[in-house]
């Protein structure tokens, strides 16, 4: 997989930013380096597919705090952490909070590239997922209230006859509703419909749910 994307580098050490930028640029990435959090925040563009390579110990705001802030602000940017010291508790915390990787300086190019690619991969997946969810919601939104009711029952695994009895209509009517739901949701099988319903229910990708749980 040769996913090229934008990489944000944030480290208080300008020389390191410069070195890493050289390395990543040579690998064909689009690299933006920063030495201060504020500069990065100003330059960040959410629409670009990207990831953040972040030094844990920044003077004014440390890496983990920035990670938290971004998450709270709803910015979904995969983060690869760099640290000067092999601090295990900190790395556990970072990974739990969704970090792609936690690398110790000096960082080998292979490790960095692997992590960066993984991050971009995750960013791409994230973007795909967001697009998919958006169309799913759009389709779901095109259902009539009656169709949405029928869909809930279908997904819950009820038979047409049971649904008709519950809603007080004829079985045939339910059948029509059901086929219209299948058509509007653009699914072929019941299984597909159930998966679409689950995803709508969840509303968020799996890892994002975990992060959310973590912070509640």
């Amino acid at each position, binding site marked *: 997989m040769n996913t090229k994307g934008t990489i944000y580098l944030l480290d208080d050490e300008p020389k390191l930013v410069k070195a890493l930028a050289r390395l990543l640029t040579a690998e064909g990435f689009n690299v933006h380096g920063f030495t201060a959090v504020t500069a990065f925040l100003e330059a960040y563009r959410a629409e670009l597919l990207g990831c953040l390579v972040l030094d844990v110990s920044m003077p004014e705001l440390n890496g983990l705090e920035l990670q938290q802030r971004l998450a709270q602000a709803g910015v979904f940017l995969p983060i690869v952490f760099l640290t000067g010291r092999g601090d295990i508790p900190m790395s556990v915390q970072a990974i739990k909070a969704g970090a792609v990787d936690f690398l110790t300086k000096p960082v080998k*190019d292979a490790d960095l590239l692997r992590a960066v690619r993984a991050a971009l991969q995750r960013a791409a997946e994230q973007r795909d997922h967001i697009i998919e969810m958006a169309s799913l919601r759009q389709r779901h939104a095109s259902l009539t209230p009656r169709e949405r009711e029928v869909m809930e029952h279908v997904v819950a695994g009820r038979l047409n006859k049971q649904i008709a009895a519950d809603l007080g209509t004829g079985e045939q009517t339910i059948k029509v509703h059901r086929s219209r739901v299948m058509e509007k949701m653009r699914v072929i099988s019941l299984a597909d419909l159930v998966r679409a319903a689950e995803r709508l229910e969840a509303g968020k990708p799996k890892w994002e749910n975990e992060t959310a749980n973590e912070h509640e």
Partner: protein
Amino acid sequence: MNWIMFIWPMVTAACVTIGLIHLRIGLRRTPEAAHVMFALTAFVVAAFSCLELAMIRADSAAHYLELQRWIDFAGVAVVVSMTAFVWVFFGTGRKWLALVGCGLALSPMILNLGPEPKMIFLQITGIKTVETFGGATYTVAEGTRNLWSLLFYGGVVLILVFVADASATLWRRGVRRRSALVGGAIIFFLLLGGTHSAMVDTGILTTPYLVSFFYLLILVAMGMELSDDVLHATQLATDLRESDERLSLAAEAVHLGLWVWEIGRDEFWITPEGRALFGFSADERINRDRFFKAVHPEDRETMQSAVTKSLLEDDVHEREYRVVLPDGRTRRVAVRGRVERDHSGTAVRVRGVAIDVSEHRLAEEKIRESEEFNRTVLASIRSQIAILDRAGTIIAVNDAWNHFALANGGVTKAVGVGSNYLDVCHCSASAGDATARRSLEGVRSVLDGESEFFEMEYPCDSPTEARWFLVRVVPLKAAAGGVVVSHSDITRLKRSELDVQSQREELAHLSRITMLSELSGSLAHELNQPLAIILSNAQAAQRLMAQEPPDLAEVRDILVDIVSEDERAGEVIHRMRAMLKHGETKLQPLVLREVIEEALHLVSSDLISRGVIVDRTFHPDGPRVLGDAIQLQQVLLNLILNACDAMSANPRLDRRITIATELRNGMVCVAVSDSGCGLPSEVERVFEPFQTTKPDGLGLGLSICRTIVSAHQGRLWAEGNAARGATFHIELPAIKEVHS
């Protein structure tokens, strides 16, 4: 009764009276032969005068002849006694002349020894009475004259020559009045008396003898001489009394005893002061034995031999004796006497003085003891001490100084009494000896009164061991100025001082290692950073080189960065190695600001990870201090880390350290303030060893910091801040900068 009967007895009386006077003078305590002799001539002339009168009144030839015999003898007696008088009175004259003259005058006397005196008259035919003026009569004889009688006058002439010669000699010796008056009178007497008598004897004149009348000349002359003597003596007596009084006064004032010892009579005359001195009673008769008894038994033998010696050989006797007083007290008396001798050299008397010298001796003894004591004290002092005068010349040294000079041979040999200390220092200083130069400056400044004190330690190794000396210079408390220089061997002290120093260094080193291990994470990061940059740059370069075409410009930039980062890593290691180094204290001029910056470099990543912000307020001139960079860095690191620890409970953005330097009264002050948890109530406890708030701390940090600062002649103390937190102050003496 006629005038003759008055005149002759008067002359006789005059002669006797004057004779008696002279006899009285001549027979005083000290007999004078001259006066006695003169008295003799006077008596002889008196007898002669009686015979003259008797002859004038002779009434028979036989009677006349008998008187003639006796008057001849008297005449000879007059001549002989006169000669003897001149001999004694003048002390001059030729002996042979006197003897021959007297012999010649005596020789015709043989003629008078027979039953009939034949010297003048061979035969008397008769006597006749001659009348002279005033109706007075006298008797003369007639007969055959014997001209052998002229032999007598030959003798008289010789005696006359003898007297003239003696007078001339006396005149030449300067005794002019006596020679002229007395000598002249005698010569006239002999001339007139002799001529007249000769003319009577030879019958040329028919008069009685008039010798006694001519003798009146001599009486007048001697009377004048005597009256002069008397006047002189009166004056002398007055003078003597005055001088005696003065002397007595002076003698009394100083309790001087005067004494005279008449050796012959063995009798002492001694003044009341003298008697009091020796413990004699007022009227006691003092002789040699009594004198000896007064002296302390142990001194008697010395006195005996000293007296004997001075009587025999010396003229002056000078000794001190212990005198035992009747009440048992002992005093020390100095006796000085001068021996007087007669013309034969026999000691006749000793005159002298005596004085009580007990107090004098006591005072002398005290001075001597005090001098001895001072000398002993000086000699007992082990330091080498020299006293310099205002010009730097050594005027005294103690034994230790001499021993040291001897023990150290050539170089210091020149530093003895009389040599100039400054010159010696100057000589060595010119040869490049820095110690000598500093010593020279120090001694000079104290000599010139510019400083009250100078002290310097210096190494002075012997061939076998390392030695240290301390030279101290203090002003000599004397009007003439000068200084006391002392050199002390402080090797033992210095060694223990060096031991303490090395222990302190050891401890400081240990503390640095502890601190560095505390900082190890931060330092690893410090080292990691450049390594990370190098690695990434190098790997980027590999990629750039692999491209076609390779981006060489970028690779060149990368290499520049790699080099600079490598240097940075090297610096970190260098800093760390310096802190870990087990070095001796090396004092050098330092700008404290640089030391602080260096310390901050070491902790910078620690500060970042702890979220601590450091504010710096540095004195613009950057005054310098003399110090060991590493040790001072250690102190600052310690204070900074302590400050960080104190603020660990503060929120991240509320961790602030302020480091300020300023110059105050010649001291460079550094204040490290934090806003942390502050100090315990007993502030000084933080400087005690093994006091710690950290679970893994040794509790030595601040205690060592204080030792280090003290070793730099500085102070380290802590104060609680008004609001919160604490401030640690370091104060170090600034180097006096010489501005050109």
